[in-house]
């Protein structure tokens, strides 16, 4: 658009790498981008798994210590081998049934619409993750670099 209105800006720190925690930041990011907002996602700690090529197709949701599962699983059962895989499969099926896009599809749509992705350099160093392990990111940043980007955002979230 030609008008000189400053775009609204959304910045999210994505800190969790479970399947259920990967949805909210990606849904908000893609939606904001579709509303003509400028969007920045900073992936840190386990959140890096969401943009880790080796891991992001196998994000999981664990039934253990998770009383909010649609079908509550007692912790003692949730501990058994295969229960995490089962809960993950159930969640994926539920999302598919509800016509909610997969994490991979959401990432692709975010990228298509110009959402900026950043890896947390410190987490990468500590966990031995290189930039080649990640889907293409705009930059790998430290805390100061992220704060500089986030300092004039209209919406700042930590998920």
């Amino acid at each position, binding site marked *: 658009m030609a008008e000189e209105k400053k775009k609204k800006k959304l910045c999210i720190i994505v800190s969790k790498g479970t399947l259920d925690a990967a949805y909210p930041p990606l849904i908000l990011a893609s*939606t904001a981008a579709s509303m003509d907002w400028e969007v920045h996602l900073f992936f840190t700690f386990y959140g890096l798994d969401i943009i880790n090529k080796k891991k992001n197709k196998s994000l999981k949701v664990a039934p253990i210590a998770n009383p909010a599962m649609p079908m509550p699983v007692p912790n003692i059962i949730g501990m058994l081998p295969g229960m995490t895989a089962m809960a993950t499969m159930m969640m994926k099926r539920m999302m598919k049934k509800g016509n909610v896009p997969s994490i991979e599809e959401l990432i692709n749509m975010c990228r298509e619409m110009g959402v900026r992705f950043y890896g947390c350099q410190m987490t990468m160093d500590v966990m031995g993750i290189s930039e080649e392990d990640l889907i293409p990111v705009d930059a790998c940043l430290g805390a100061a670099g992220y704060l500089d980007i986030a300092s004039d955002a209209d919406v700042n979230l930590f998920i």
Partner: protein
Amino acid sequence: MVEADEVLDTSGLSCPMPVLKAKKAMEKLSPGKVLKIIATDRGSVGDIPAWAKNNGYELIDRGEENGKFIFYVKKPE
């Protein structure tokens, strides 16, 4: 009655797909043209007007047809 130049049917799709598809459809639309959006997602009742406002699109009409939500969104000239 509002005349639509293009129609986008998002029936069956959940948040955030209706607005993502609508954005793509609006980008293809020429200025001054109107997109009719059909949605079944209950969230779209609030989402489409908010989405349109943020994009600077004009929501010129809205309603319900056969239990589906209908929006007419105009791309500015």
